[in-house]
């Protein structure tokens, strides 16, 4: 047992810190620190800065323009990014689509798409969930029927995060009705500007249009845009789900969130003293911090195994459950910490279009929105109920 990073890893961490210190624009880190929604241009700006350094694709092999980092270095990088309040790397192209294509795509597809992910020419979004297929993803109904060299796609996807910015979508579509539901699914790459695609924003309970519905009405997609074999899409999607899970615990976000909470609690007053000195508040905060300390090590234990070449299995379900719960507790306690200033409804959408004066301390403004928005953490990417079922089936064999 050795809980410390190696000298090389410490050196790497210093390098990341120095890079963020010089290259992370303050305008971006301020917005991230205050939980404000980044514009498309701001996301692209940060991606470009990282891409110039060669650090955009921490999870890609060097041959595809990635860093080739192992799981520990990826963790160090993600952790430092979150602590510095750097914008998160938009996951759909880099973390989700890239690894699937590298594993299952043709040489032509890899040569064509991967550089465009890095350059930002393609902004990908994920077309998985449907109105009737959430936790039970395999019951999806969007169908793709062969017509010569094309598929004709009809149906609807939903919860498409940042789909309003995307020009490409990777979709799971039904190409066969026979057999088990998982067996008739294919993985298609679709240009969002194709004729017959409509995108409708869905406003969430924090007032932000973060996700979308995407409608497909006789959309023509070349067969060449299929990844891998027909009817094998489920296998590729499952592969992607394990990749999605390497940073699933969100330790960096939790650590940064806890730091913010402490800062707020030092500023807020309770009975004439800083809130953080209030023993009942401090007890709640301490309880979360104790959980986070253990969680950080649980996360590193799983990551070390991954670095040693073992793909994380059901362990990542634990990371997802515990990680999302800790973040949600931090969000809830932060909401409590700002007291009555959690009450104003601060929609950034509204703020942009009005001359409404800011109310209360700046750090309070996004707190309720973030609390509400992060209820999604235990719903998306396989709800926590689904994760518990995976744990009980796979690890407990019940």
């Amino acid at each position, binding site marked *: 047992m050795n809980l410390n990073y190696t000298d090389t890893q410490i050196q790497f961490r210093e390098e990341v810190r120095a890079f963020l210190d010089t290259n992370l624009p303050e305008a971006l880190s301020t917005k991230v620190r205050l939980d404000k929604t980044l514009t498309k241009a701001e996301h692209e700006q940060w991606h470009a800065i990282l891409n110039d350094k060669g650090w955009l694709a921490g999870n890609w092999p060097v041959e595809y323009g990635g860093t080739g980092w192992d799981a520990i270095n990826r963790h160090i990088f993600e952790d430092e990014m979150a602590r510095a309040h750097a914008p998160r790397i938009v996951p759909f192209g880099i973390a989700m689509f890239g690894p699937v294509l590298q594993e299952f795509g043709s040489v032509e597809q890899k040569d064509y798409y991967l550089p465009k992910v890095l350059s930002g020419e393609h902004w990908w979004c994920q077309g998985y969930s449907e109105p009737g297929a959430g936790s039970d993803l395999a019951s999806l109904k969007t169908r793709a029927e062969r017509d010569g060299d094309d598929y004709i796609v009809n149906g609807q996807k*939903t919860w498409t995060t940042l789909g309003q910015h995307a020009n490409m979508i990777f979709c799971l579509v039904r190409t066969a009705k026979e057999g088990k539901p998982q067996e008739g699914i294919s993985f298609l790459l679709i240009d969002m500007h194709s004729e017959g695609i409509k995108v409708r924003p869905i406003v969430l*309970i924090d007032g932000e249009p973060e996700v979308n519905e995407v409608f497909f009405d006789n959309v023509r997609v070349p067969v060449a845009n299929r990844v891998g074999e027909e009817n094998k899409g489920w296998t590729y999607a499952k592969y992607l789900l394990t990749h999605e899970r390497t940073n699933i615990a969100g330790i960096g976000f939790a650590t940064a969130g806890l730091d913010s909470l402490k800062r707020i609690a030092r500023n*807020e007053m309770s*009975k004439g003293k800083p809130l953080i000195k209030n023993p009942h508040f401090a007890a709640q905060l301490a309880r979360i911090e104790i959980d986070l300390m253990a969680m950080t090590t649980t996360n590193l234990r799983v990551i070390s195994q991954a670095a040693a070449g073992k793909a994380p299995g059901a362990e990542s379900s634990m990371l997802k459950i515990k990680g999302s719960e800790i973040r949600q507790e931090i969000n809830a306690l932060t909401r*409590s910490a700002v007291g009555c200033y959690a009450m*104003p409804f601060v929609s950034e959408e509204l703020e942009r279009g009005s001359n409404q004066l800011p*109310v*209360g301390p700046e750090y309070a403004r996004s707190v309720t929105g973030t609390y509400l928005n992060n*209820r999604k953490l*235990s719903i998306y990417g396989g709800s926590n109920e689904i994760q518990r079922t995976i744990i009980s089936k796979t690890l407990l064999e019940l």
Partner: protein
Amino acid sequence: MNFELTDERQMLQDSLRRFLNDNYSNEKIRSLLDSDTGHSVDIWSGLAEMGVIGALFSEADGGYGGAGFDLSTVFEELGRVGAVDPLLDTAVLGGGVIASAGSSTQKVLLESIIDGSMHLAFAHGEPQSRYELSRVSCTARREANGFVLDGQKSVVVNATAADYLIVSARSAGDVDSTQGISLFLVPANTDGLTLTDFPLASGGRAAELLLENVRLDGSALLGNEGDGFNTLELANARATLAICAEALGLMETIRALTTDYLKIRKQFGQPIGKFQVLQHRMADVLTEIEQARSAVINLAGHVDGARDAREKHVSATKNLIGLVGKLVAEESIQMHGGIGMTEEYELGHLARRLVMVDHRLGDSMHHLERFIDLAVA
């Protein structure tokens, strides 16, 4: 023991429920959330015409109720539809202070409150006061003909619609002393008041209130100078009952929506309500809501009684409601999944309004500490 409503209150509940069901819908609420006033003038007049505002005042004050169970009956119904009407502000807090401390001249205003033609706002909390009722740093300085007020009040709900603001200010004593707090009836157009209006996450509107050199004549004083704390505490107790009953109504509707959803939403070939994990969690939600109902009944039964028992129940009930409210809101969103995250679906407003209850009149931690002081330590 009898836990049934009286015939009068049963009639009030039935007619109010009908009125609110006829006048409120998800679309209506969504249009009100986007409106400049934050609530509907028509619904307000309708509530006044039905005598709902009057039900919150005693006969001596021109109403026909005003007891704890009148408040809980009305506010539970308001909660059931997620109503955004400022009854808490105009009637229970503002009207309550006038009823308990006002002079006969000031009490004339109660008539206009009860008939729906006047709005009030209760300007008490401050940026540093964090729910502590006696912590008032806004100052009232005596001057030849009256008082001069200075300071800041936070998140004053219904301030923009209000004809009068009830303002607390310190005329003597340390910043957190229960002695030396004076209450004032301040016309909204008084010089030196600055209101910054904004919408609330719960629906409705509020404003930050800045008082700069606000000159009031002596007749603006409500009750005796420096003696405002007991009035504040009583108004706060009644308002706590009201908001807790409203939370209970919100919980009931949220539970019904969630239970219905568990029956109709199918995944893996069956309604998700067939999964035992969700059944058990929903059973916990139901049990906790029954606890919340009992806590509201406890407070309603003590709010008109002796101070010590009343305040113990204020803190017990508000603490419990805060915790159960969070559980009900979070579990209902979780069990709905993605649809529970959307603004368009009915649950969004109800869950948000329920969560926001913990940010008014003291949160669950504040009332836990207060309960320890009052009843444990």
